[in-house]
């Protein structure tokens, strides 16, 4: 490689996968902002982003349905990359090395690392929980017993908390690990990025590339 040439890249997400991801991300943010507005008075002002409390209340569940359908599609597309492996447990055990950016000490990572896989499972569970409990709260179309609605309110708030906290970690990881965001904005990553952070995946992807 000459010093001036751009680093070579590997495809990571197709245009269709990226669109899917961003629909999920945008609807999630809208849901989190409007939902938090109902959740705590300190955030009520956020309801104005959707046109005030009344419109936030009306729109939130419909956005929720779009979110859930698109999330389910995305999750189905990515599920096969998230199978748990023995080396993932080892990677997690060495979490201090992860935080301190000492990647050379860690087991080689495939397409996703252990935390990304955990995030995947946690989000799948909380999305299902949000969907089911959200239906329970949706008085426009459904009428459940007051006991069911009370349970749904607690489950919805709990799952929303878990999902939002996980997404904070997810967004931070994208900011922290430089070169990741382009995977979702342009669809590819550099060889060096893959080699450093996902070496097993890199090897698999370049197998025979130069032959």
């Amino acid at each position, binding site marked *: 490689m000459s010093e001036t040439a751009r*680093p070579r890249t590997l495809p990571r997400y197709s245009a269709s996968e990226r669109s899917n991801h961003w629909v999920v991300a945008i609807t999630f943010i809208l849901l989190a902002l409007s939902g938090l*507005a109902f959740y705590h*008075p300190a955030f009520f002002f956020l309801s104005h982003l959707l046109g005030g409390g*009344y419109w936030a*209340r009306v729109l939130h569940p419909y956005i929720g349905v779009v979110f859930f359908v698109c999330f389910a599609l995305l999750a189905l597309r990515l599920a096969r990359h998230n199978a748990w492996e023995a080396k993932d447990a080892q990677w997690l055990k060495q979490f201090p090395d992860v935080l301190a950016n000492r990647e050379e000490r860690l087991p080689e990572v495939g397409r996703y690392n252990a935390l990304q896989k955990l995030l995947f499972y946690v989000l799948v569970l909380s999305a299902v929980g949000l969907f089911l409990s959200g239906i329970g*709260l949706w008085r426009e179309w459904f009428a459940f017993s007051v006991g069911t609605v009370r349970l749904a309110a607690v489950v919805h708030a709990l799952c929303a908390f878990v999902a939002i906290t996980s997404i*904070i970690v997810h967004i931070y990881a994208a900011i922290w690990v430089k070169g990741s965001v382009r995977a979702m904005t342009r669809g590819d990553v550099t060889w*060096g990025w893959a080699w450093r952070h996902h070496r097993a995946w890199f090897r698999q992807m370049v197998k025979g590339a130069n032959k």
Partner: protein
Amino acid sequence: MALQSLDIKRRSATTSPTPSVREPSVGAVAKLIDVSKCIGCKACQTACMEWNDLRDEVGTNVGVYDNPADLTEHSWTVMRFAEYETPQGDLEWLIRKDGCMHCEDPGCLKACPSPGAIVQYANGIVDFHQEHCIGCGYCVTGCPFNVPRISKKDHKAYKCTLCSDRVAVGQEPACVKTCPTGAIEFGTKEVMTEHAQARIADLKSRGYANAGLYDPAGVGGTHVMYVLHHADQPTLYSGLPKDPQISPAVSLWKGVAKPLSMAAMALAALVGFFHYMRVGPAETSEEDERNAEKEVSHE
């Protein structure tokens, strides 16, 4: 409707202090419903419709005296008729005027996410301010008495106001004014409680050993109280709850869960920020790119 002459003591979804300088010198108010004096004439239902400009749809007779059969956004009070066979084999007709109990610790207000949509005045009356209502139905979830009703027309919650507008100008609620037997009375909570004691003593002397006052402590007491002949079995009166409480699910959801989860989310963001400030970004170096190239060309 906000009333200038009544201070607001509690306001939904509000963390800042509410006005608390003026205190009603006579304390809180209460409506006392003496079930033993009620003849089930429904004059109070009519007075409520008249005063509040409410006209429910004319429904169909469902085979019992209850009419309308349930509270609605147009019927803020309904008489509920229960037939009870005593252990002695007598038939008793237990008639209860149902409606908002004006809880001292209102579950509706606790659950409401919209600032100022539900308020409690200094005199204890709980009022819905529909212009701030967003129609989420959380008040229904919070109420231990199944009182608020959401309108299909404007998606806002409605219930008995205890005629806060009349009370504010020194009048008794419309139902009290109209009751022909004096079964409904209105005054300060203190006087009403005392008055109830005399009624209870009277009922006891007439053989109702379990007569008593319904002013449930689980919701901090109520500003609508009942004198019951069978105070030991309130559920006889068309399911009046024996020990009403804000559901533990609602207390959890609107109680400790809120500050804890907020703190945890803020902490997650802060930990991220400081991690970045301390460790710096995880960058891919030129060397990584070269190593990647090298590895492929060596294969």
